[in-house]
């Protein structure tokens, strides 16, 4: 039976490949920390009328921790500052921190735990769209309120979420408008293969087509992908004027490295990235990315008294060389917006708070002057920055005034609008 044993071996090896694949994908969850975090002690602390509990739910472990830990720091900074200056409506804020562990299912679990057991009045958290989508039913079920600070693909609108991160018309479309203004006619879209790049590019493609410009190519690489040789060959062949890059994380390092090796530098072919901010630049090395563009609603280099004060306070607490970015500042501003809404509503009730939140007027913040629109997304300014060798962006363009958020792009979703009147109904 010469091949019988061999077949067994083949089966074993194939099993090995499967396990390896699973391992690769579960590497994210492989390092979950124990749920018994030091914060657990807080849960048992008695809450009197002089204190109010809020949830902070970010990934403190797993792949997303690198982005979400600084975001949590920014949210905690706001809470500490507010507590130091007397709290909210005379009550001290008690933050209950939970670890989403870079796993959407855990985000949903922890959101339930925060609302049911800890009785938090609101939650600040989430990063990936997958984590938001997983938490959404929880917030709708308990009619609680989530403050979501990250730029996302739109196409969602729930009364139980305050979306402070950019809608597509506040990040992707301003970048497109800028590129058009610069005379770029041929666009190449490259992104990681998941919901955000796919949806953002769907919207961009409609606009490229609508404006009579050319889509020279479109490419998706699996998350974490590291070989771009073919993608770069296709880019070289299709001769775009600009690359719109929605790659995530480490893939960016491989992409920029291999572009440079192929002789394509940012001064020859402009690259506009949607997922690279100051901390990513610092981690990847500015020399690799210098000269490329980014579109955000905040850059660390924004000059305003509010921003300077924020950076100073953040660096005093988390290190003089700590860099800050768009989602962090949105997280920080969210806490202050919640405070203002509570004070306007004179109540911690999530329903009253969200009703009050959209009635606030434009307030100065590190982001510039912002407020929440009736659709519970943030009215804010769009900026384009060009990366300098020192790791900071020079702001080379900004939108004329603030941009009103549009969860549903009219070109892609004609006639679809936000309806937040009937609370609790799923309006996804």
């Amino acid at each position: 039976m010469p091949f019988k044993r061999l077949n067994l071996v083949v089966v074993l090896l194939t099993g090995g490949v499967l396990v390896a694949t699973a391992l690769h994908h579960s590497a994210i969850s492989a390092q979950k920390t124990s749920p018994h975090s030091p914060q657990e002690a807080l849960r048992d602390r008695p809450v009197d009328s002089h204190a109010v509990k809020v949830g902070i739910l970010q990934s403190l472990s797993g792949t997303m921790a690198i982005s979400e830990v600084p975001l949590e720091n920014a949210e905690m900074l706001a809470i500490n500052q507010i507590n130091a200056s007397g709290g909210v409506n005379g009550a001290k804020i008690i933050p209950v921190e939970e670890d989403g562990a870079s796993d959407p299912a855990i985000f949903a679990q922890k959101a339930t735990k925060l609302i049911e057991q800890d009785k938090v009045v609101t939650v600040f958290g989430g990063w990936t769209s997958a984590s938001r989508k997983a938490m959404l039913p929880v917030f709708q079920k308990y009619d609680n309120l989530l403050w979501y600070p990250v730029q996302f693909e739109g196409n969602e609108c729930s009364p139980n979420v305050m979306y402070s991160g950019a809608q597509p018309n506040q990040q992707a479309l301003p970048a497109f408008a800028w590129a058009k203004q610069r005379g770029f006619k041929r666009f190449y879209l490259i992104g990681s293969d998941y919901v955000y790049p796919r949806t953002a590019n769907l919207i961009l493609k409609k606009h490229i087509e609508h404006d009579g410009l050319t889509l020279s190519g479109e490419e998706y690489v699996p998350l974490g992908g590291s070989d771009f040789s073919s993608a770069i060959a296709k880019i070289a062949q299709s001769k775009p004027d600009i690359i719109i890059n929605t790659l995530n994380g480490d893939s960016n390092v491989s992409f920029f490295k291999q572009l440079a090796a192929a002789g394509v530098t940012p001064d020859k072919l402009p690259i506009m990235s949607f997922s690279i901010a100051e901390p990513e630049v610092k981690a990847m090395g500015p020399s690799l990315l210098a000269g490329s563009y980014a579109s955000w609603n905040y850059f660390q280099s924004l000059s305003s008294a509010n921003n300077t004060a924020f950076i100073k306070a953040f660096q005093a607490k988390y290190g003089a060389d700590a860099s800050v970015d768009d989602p962090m500042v949105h997280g920080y501003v969210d806490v202050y917006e919640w405070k203002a809404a509570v004070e306007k509503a004179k109540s911690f009730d999530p329903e009253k708070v969200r009703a009050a939140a959209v009635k606030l007027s434009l307030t100065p913040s590190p982001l510039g002057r912002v407020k929440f629109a009736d659709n519970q997304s943030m009215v804010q300014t769009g900026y384009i920055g060009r990366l300098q060798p020192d790791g900071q962006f020079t702001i080379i363009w900004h939108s004329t005034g603030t941009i009103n958020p549009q969860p549903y792009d009219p070109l892609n979703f004609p006639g679809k609008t936000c309806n937040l009147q009937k609370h609790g109904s799923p309006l996804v």
Partner: protein
Amino acid sequence: MSEAAFLLGQVFNGLSVASLFVLAALGLALSFGLMRVINMAHGEMLMLGGYLAYLTLRAIPGPVGIIAAMPIAFVGAGIVGALLEWTVIRRLSARPLDTLLATWGISLILQQAARNLFGAVGVQVVAPAWLNHTISVTAGPLAGLNLPAVRIFIMLIACVVLGGIALILTKTRLGLYVRAVHQDRPIAAAMGIDTPRIDCLVFALGAGIAGIAGVALALLGPVTPTVGQSYIVPAFLVVILGGLGSLTGAAVASLVVGMITAVAQIFVNVSVAQVLLLLFVILFIQVRPQGIIAIRSRALED
């Protein structure tokens, strides 16, 4: 860029991907061929090579750093491989499933160790200036063809490593012993060959080659704690496709896998190309379960 230049460019890219796969898979094929051990921690030897390249370049900046990194990564990963064989694998080698689980555990431990030592964010290895060139064809029918020096360099490494291994196996006494153990372990042992020592050496050699592969990877992307994970799956594919334990098979299979990936990507995007590759391998194994090169080894047959 002309069609011909684009096609030729894709052939070049296929060779380049193949050279990475062959470096990643050779060690796996070696240890599997000799010991029938499925080493799930093989990817971490790649990672180790990458971090050793990073440390070497920090100690020796300048143009020769990357050359120095090769032997250092080879020896460093080789020592770790030998330790792994000596402490764990040899004690479990009679039970393949146990080695699979044990080496998986080791792989997790090594990843976490790298995370604690170097942080979850990757470190960067900057290619020296002499590797920063691109050979560009600017005129003629192949105008627009770009051949990055760094990829040519990696192909050269793959060729040198392949040649080196072939020489060791065919021309040296160690190679003779390895082939003897491969063909019939009990008889080789009866002839006085120290088979545990051969196992350890071969395992170390395989890990060392993975270390070199890690240096090559570091030139193209970031070195992260999970860098090995994205190459272990293609490496296993190459070993299965090539014929279990066959080195020639592994080399040929690397070429096949690299070319399929590159050619498929002319027509479809990267994600779909991976699906096509897996489909091809599954179908191929249905038709020819023994892989491209069937090795006649008594150890495999009984």
